[in-house]
Each structure stands twice: as C-alpha cells, then as structure tokens.
C-alpha cells in the first residue's frame, strides 16, 4: 500500500499522468469542456509528449477568447482532436500559426475530441449568431470516421466519463497513468479471456472480414447521404464554409459529390504526404509542430484566395 502511495507521489511529481478537463452539455445541448480550466496533456510512459491546454470561456482549448464582431475578421476552425490540439501547447496551435501569418485576423478553434460532422454542424447551428459573425469557417472532416450519423444526438457514452466514479478515479494520477500506458489492459481483458477459456473458444480467431466492392460502395453512398441530411438539417453556408480534408484518404465519389454540389474544400494531404520531415508526432498520430505549420499554410493560402474573391 505504501508503495502505491509512493508511486502516486512519483507520478505526480514527474507529472506522468495526463490531466483530464471536465466536460458538460451546455444550454444549447452542445457537448464541450467546462470553461476556464487548464492542465497538461501527457503521452507515453516517460512523458514523450507534454503539452499545456487552456479551456477558454467558450469551452474550447485556445489561447484567446471568442468574441466575433462584424468589424473584425475572424476564422473559425471546427473539428475533432486535431483542432482541439491537446497534443500541443495551446499557445502554439494551428490557429496561432494562422494568426502569425495573417494581419488583423482572429482565429477561433472549436475543437473537441470525437466531434464528427454532426457535432460540428449542430454546434454551428446552435451558435448561429456567433458563427454568422465569423467570416470564414473551416470544418475538419475525415470521410471514414465523421459521417456515421445523419443527426446529432448527445453521446452519453462520453458523458459517462463525468460520473462521480470516473471523476474520482481521475484524481488518482497513478491510475490515470497506468491506464494510459496500457498496464491495466490485461486485468480488464482477463474476465473475457477466462470466459472464452471455459467456453473453449480461445483458439477461435475471428478473421477481420474483408469488405466487398459492393459493401464499400454502399457504405460510401450511406455516408454521402448522411452528409446531405446533416447539411439539410443544420444548414451550411457554402459562401464561407470550407471543408479541410485529406484528398488521398477521401473516396473519389465524395470529392465528385462535393465539386458537383458547390462544397469547397482544402486538401492538406498533398502538403503533408510530400513533406520530407514527418508531420505527425512520434508517440501520437496528431500533427507535430511541422505538421501544424503545413496545415496553417494550407488554410492561410485558402483564406487568401477567399479574401480576394
């Protein structure tokens, strides 16, 4: 027991366990972080990646408050963990890098881990007054992950993490750290293994099913349908909204659909894939400093073209 206490102390002193901000559902039924909190995000056994976050008054990780007006020029970045940016210091985010390259432009980062396209459009719909004042909105989208649903609903599985049991567990930094490095996985998997052992099904290996061409086609059609439904339900201002995507990972059929229906997009894939230095972190799939520079550059170029037009 004393060893556990000492380990907790070690983990705290060396700050090996990540901090977890509290989340909530606001009065507009939007899931976000509880405003005005800060902490550190940690990746890896030995603090391989260590970054500070700061949740602003609007409930998003950012170095600035979001106060759009009609007089200023604002860009909003809406997306998932890549935009949320817990993997980077909040003052060195994609948004900050964009601001550094543009004069008199404020960048608002509406990033939240797990946000799919439904979350994004629902947020913009609920905060219509705010987004109406923003001049240019970039929505990060990954076709294979972000179009599962055709309607926004609160994901209660995520909100379950706010139960008092989880909240208290998160206070034990040793537990957070152990969970993060996967040392508890064997314990969690043990009951399942035991059951399968007694059922004598441990040797049955289920091969991942290969999707047929028809299944892939059907899935893509469904995702495009979801996209259409979401746009119809929550609205989409084609004049100032633009999608941020990796063309190399997006099916041609969706790209054609976007082109045919006047949805603009920024392709960051070409820039990232052709980079000689790695654009992602080593212990994390998110963008590293170089990757964020490239993303910022793509958005700045697109914004400049938008401003000229």
């Amino acid at each position, binding site marked *: 027991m004393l*060893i556990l206490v000492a*380990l907790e102390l070690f983990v705290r002193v060396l700050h090996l366990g990540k901090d977890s901000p509290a989340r909530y559902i606001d009065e507009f039924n939007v899931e976000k972080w509880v405003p005005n909190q800060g902490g550190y995000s940690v990746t890896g*056994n030995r603090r391989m990646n260590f970054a500070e976050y700061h949740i602003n008054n609007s409930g998003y990780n950012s170095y600035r408050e979001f106060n759009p007006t009609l007089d200023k020029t604002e860009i909003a970045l809406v997306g998932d963990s890549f935009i949320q940016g817990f993997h980077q210091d909040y003052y060195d985010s994609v948004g900050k890098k964009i601001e550094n390259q543009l004069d008199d432009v404020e960048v608002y980062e509406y990033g939240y881990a797990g946000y799919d396209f439904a979350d994004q459009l629902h947020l913009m719909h609920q905060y219509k007054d705010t987004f109406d004042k923003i001049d240019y909105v970039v929505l990060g989208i990954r076709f294979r992950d972000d179009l599962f649903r055709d309607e926004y609903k609160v994901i209660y599985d995520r909100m379950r993490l706010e139960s008092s049991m989880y909240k208290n567990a998160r206070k034990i930094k040793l537990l957070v750290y152990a969970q993060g*490095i996967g*040392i508890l996985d*064997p314990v969690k998997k043990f009951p399942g293994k035991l059951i399968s052992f007694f059922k004598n099904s441990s040797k049955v290996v289920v091969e991942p099913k290969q999707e047929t061409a028809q299944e892939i086609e059907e899935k893509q059609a469904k995702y495009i349908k979801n996209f259409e439904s979401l746009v119809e339900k929550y609205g989409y201002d084609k004049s100032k909204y633009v999608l941020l995507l990796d063309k190399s990972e997006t099916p041609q059929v969706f790209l054609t659909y976007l082109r045919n229906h006047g949805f603009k997009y920024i392709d960051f894939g070409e820039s990232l894939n052709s980079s000689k230095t790695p654009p992602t972190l080593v212990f994390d799939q998110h963008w590293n400093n170089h990757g964020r520079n490239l993303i910022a550059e793509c958005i700045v170029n697109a914004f400049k073209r938008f401003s000229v037009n």
Partner: protein
Amino acid sequence: MLFNSFEFFVFLIVVYFLYWFVLKKSLKGQNILLLVASYFFYGIWDWRFLSLILLSTIVDYIIGHKIHDTDDDTRRKRWLWCSVVFNIGLLGFFKYYNFFIDSWVDLASRLGYTMKSTWTLKVILPVGISFYTFQTMSYSFDIYYRKLKPTKSFLSFAAFVSFFPQLVAGPIERASNLLSQISNKRHFSYAQSVSGLKLILWGLVKKVVIADALGPIVDDIFSNYGSYPSSTLLIGAIFFGFQIYGDFSGYSDIAIGTAKLFGIELMSNFKFPYFSRNIAEFWRRWHISLSSWFQAYIYVPLGGSREGKLKTIRNVFIIFLVSGIWHGANWTFVLWGLVHALIFIPVLLLGNNTKYKNTVIAQDSMLPSVKELLSIFGVFFIVTIAWIFFRSASIGDAFSFISGLTEFSTAPYFHPNGYRMADYYILVVLFLCYEFIIRRDERAPFNFKNRYVRFLVYTIMVFAMMLFYDSGIDRSFIYFQF
C-alpha cells in the same frame, strides 16, 4: 501462460492458496496439486505435448528402477542408453530432424548433387523440451552413477519432471536437489516466501525493464544491419547482450522465486556473468544449470581434463559444440559454441579456469580495480561478439554484421519508432550499477539493511517497470524457443 502475464499472477495466487491453506497437511495432496498445476500451466500452450512429458516421465521412472535393480554393469549401461536414446530421440525428432535433413541436402548440393528436401516434416517445437528431457536424463544418469536412489513415488517423480516454475526454461534441476524436496514434507516459511517474492520482482524488472525495453531496438538493428553504421551495430550487439541476459536471468529469477513460494529451493542459474574476469568465470556464472549439466554428464565422463591436453581440448570442444546445438537447430549456435570453445581453451591450458572460482569483482573493496575493469571489459567484448552469431539469422548474416562493425563508421542512431535513445543508454548504465551493488548474492537482490532504503528501492523498481512497460510488444521469453 507467461510469467509476466496477469493470467500467471492469478494462477499463482490460486495454486499458492490451495497449496498452503487447503492442502497444507498432506504431502501427497500438495504433490498432486503441483502436478495438476504444472500440467495445466503447460497445457495452456499446447495440451497435445503433455503426452511427451508424460511419456518421458514414465520412461525414465521405469529406467531409473531398472538401472538400480541390477548390479550387472552391462545391463545398467544398456538401460542408461535406453534413457539417453529415448530423450535425445524426442529432442532430435522435434528439434533437429528438419535441421539435419536440410543441412544434408545443402551439403549435397554444395558437393554437386542435387537433392530435393522431401523428407522434411511440419514439426512444431514443443516448449521446454530441451529442458525437461535433460532433467529426466539427469535422473537416470545420477542413478547410474549411484549418486541417487530411484524414487518409489511416481507422483513425486512426475511432479519433479513437470514442476511448473522451471518446466519450460529451467533452471535444469537435478533429482538429488529437486526430487528430494518434492518427496519430503515442506514447511511454510514466511522468510522464504518473502525472499521468493523479492526474486520474482527482480526477475520481472530484468524482463520488463531491460529485455523487453531493449528488444525492439535490437530487432531493428539486427534486421537492418546493412543500412546502419558500425556505431549502431555496436549498440545492437551490446543491447542484445543485455536483452538476453535480462530475459533469461529474469525468467530464472522468477522461476526460483516462484519455487520458493512453494517451499522449494532451486539452484541458481545466473551469478552476474557480465562481471566475469575471464571466460571460465563467465561460464560459471552464465546458465549455470546447463553448464554444470554438461560438465557432470558429458565432460567428466569423457575424461574431463584428466587425460592429457589433447583430450582436454577435445572435451572442451565437444561440450561447447553440444551446448551450441542444444540452443537451437541452426549452425549459428554451433559457431557461437565454437567461438566460446576457442576462447575457453587458452584459459584452461594456462590453468586460469579456476582462478576466480570463489571471489567476485571488487571482493574486498567498494570499487573494482583498473585491472578488474579491463578484464571484465575484455570478457564482455568477446562475449558480445559471440552473441552476434547467437542472434543472427544465418552465419552469413553474422559475418556481414561483424564486417559492418569493423568499418568503424559512426552516426547517431534513431529508432524508426522514434524511441528516445538516451533513456535506454541511461537505463543500461543504471542497471549495471545496480547489479554491481548487489553482486555478492544473486539470490538477494534487495538486501539492504535500512528498511527505508529497501522501500525506496522496491518503489523505484515498480516505477521503472511502469516507465518501460510496452503493451504493444511480444513479451514471451527468448529461451522458450530453445
């Protein structure tokens, strides 16, 4: 079921509880439990090969009695040969059959005869076969040499052959030590259990923190040695030395510690081999149960060093070559044994093989002398070069690796997964420092008088395991393949 798995942890608690709390008063009950637990432990891997263990047990149980029951030397020898032929036959079929067929076909093709390797079979190597066959053979040998009387209890003998802590990777026990303990009543000792737990902890540290942490780096360097400079190859070879030491000695410590929990003392298998001052000392400190097995049952019967220099040299070559081939069905292991034989013979001929028999480095001082340091660096260097043969996939690869080493090119090494290499360099240095501190007793890794120091060391050890735990790697032990 791996020692470093959660399943083993649960298994151990259950068996321990039944052993000491339910069956405490019944020796027979405890032995039945040990046997069932051992067969379960082994059967989890592949229950089909339990039949081999059982067969080996029955054969040597009967042969032991047959040897003992007659005074006729010829018949005794015949029965002994039956044991040897049976056990080596098992080993030969499962471990070496394809190797010898392929080697024969390869040799024929080199001599200009084209042969098709149609005789090779799809044979799975049963885990631990090299260990338990040698253990059962030692029983027959000891009875033959009249060092031991055969046990009447088949149950005790079966539990001795399959004793789960050391079944799959040793230490290869002698019946005179292990069987006698299994045959007699064990008494619970708190001190022994605590000592066992300490050894388990230290074994886990060596496995998780050293072997598993260095493994991916070694794998990368040995897989891509052609594209790395000499400095990186040197890192690969040195790290492999630590990886295999951490892996195998870690396993042995967990085995010895686990046996202690059941009131049984196993022999030591490693005694800080990298602090050896000559190669003879290294072999008294590395895989002791195997070295002593070869010495007792091959080297000495062949005449040892009693029959002149030439025969001594021959005998040394034989045990090192056999030791090499014992490790695996590949010529790389034979060459590894040959390298060690070549280094060992001069030490033996100069009469230095027993020079450091009863001392450790820095025996009476805090730090080693310069001479001692130079000696251990020298031995470590030679052993490291020999490891290259052990680790390489083929003899060609080993020589290419060594050739790369001699180019003396340097460049910083970056692991493809982006490992922070400084962590690993520091880790190896700290590990060596700690091993130096505890160098006097391999069975007491946390022998600090001050309880606060002990507590701090335990905490640091557990913490180190967390710092280097990697859930994404293969955590099995290297010696399982032998």
